């Protein structure tokens, strides 16, 4: 069975079967990241589809694993979608009551510390940059270097973003963390 890099070479030669194999291997994983980043099933599907279109338009330089490269394309597509959306979203979104950015969520208010919080709820208040690093580190288990490559920012930036994102989550969910 060909590895991911071999599959990509076959895809580059126009092999549709190899492309389908690549989709089978990575689509679910990519969808998980896309959903966490976009917080929306339809947008997540769009982002994953555009990621696979991106695979056909870009060249894999074997500087990282194929998976990291795919995540890199996906993060770019998600950012592109976010920019497109933010142009369309009117000021009303900004005027909506936020429910208190940075406000702590009490465990008891949503079912106690044993209740599983929906990931979307957990990440919804984070900035896109903070959400990216939390998703890639905590959910996908990528190393700092892999995240830095995927987002094309220095490793130090990843560390500080991650630190601030975690501080924000700790503050927001301290009710859960103290009971857990």
């Amino acid at each position, binding site marked *: 069975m060909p590895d991911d890099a071999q599959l990509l070479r076959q895809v580059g030669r126009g092999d549709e079967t190899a*492309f389908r194999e690549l989709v089978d291997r990575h689509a679910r994983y990519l969808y998980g990241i896309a959903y966490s980043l976009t917080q929306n099933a339809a947008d997540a599907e769009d982002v994953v589809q555009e990621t696979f279109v991106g695979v056909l338009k870009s060249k894999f330089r074997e500087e990282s694993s194929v998976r990291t490269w795919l995540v890199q394309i996906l993060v770019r597509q998600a950012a592109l979608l976010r920019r497109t959306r933010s142009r369309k979203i009117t000021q009303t979104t900004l005027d909506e009551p936020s429910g208190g950015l940075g406000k702590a969520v009490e465990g008891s208010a949503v079912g106690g510390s044993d209740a599983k919080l929906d990931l979307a709820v957990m990440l919804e208040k984070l900035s896109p940059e903070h959400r990216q690093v939390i998703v890639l*580190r905590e959910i996908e288990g990528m190393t700092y270097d892999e995240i830095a490559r995927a987002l094309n920012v220095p490793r130090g930036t990843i560390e500080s973003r991650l*630190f601030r994102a975690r501080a924000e989550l700790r503050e927001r969910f301290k009710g859960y*963390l103290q009971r*857990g």
Partner: protein
Amino acid sequence: MNCDKATQIQSYLDNEMDAAQKQVLEAHLAQCAECSSLLEELRGLSAMIARAPKPEMRSGAMNRYYDAFNAARDRAVLRITSWLTAVAAGLLIGAILTWPAEEPSTTAPKSARSGTWEQFAVMPPPADTQGENGAQLVQVAQWMANDLSLGGGERR
């Protein structure tokens, strides 16, 4: 956080330290309650995120991704077509701009095109154009009328 080692706790949690760094930090953790507490909180946060239900893909999503292959090919064809159209339009505009300008009247006699009506009037018509003489004289008369009405007198 007051402890200056607090920022290193994250690297320890994420397994981003080498063995020597780990050893130093573990010795610190054994005597710093603040850092130990932070490490526990961060571990709790990671566990909470890991427990969170992961989204499931909707049915039909895989087919959309398979279709990306054709979508990319169609977009490539469209891009090439647009590019070729742009090139063709550019060539057409270039040809229009550089094409030699045509003479204002194609019916004027050759001998008159390079001169004025006065020259034409005093020159005898060529022998082989006797049959056309009448039509040429009418044409010359029209030029004279036009020339004079447009300020031909000023030239004198």
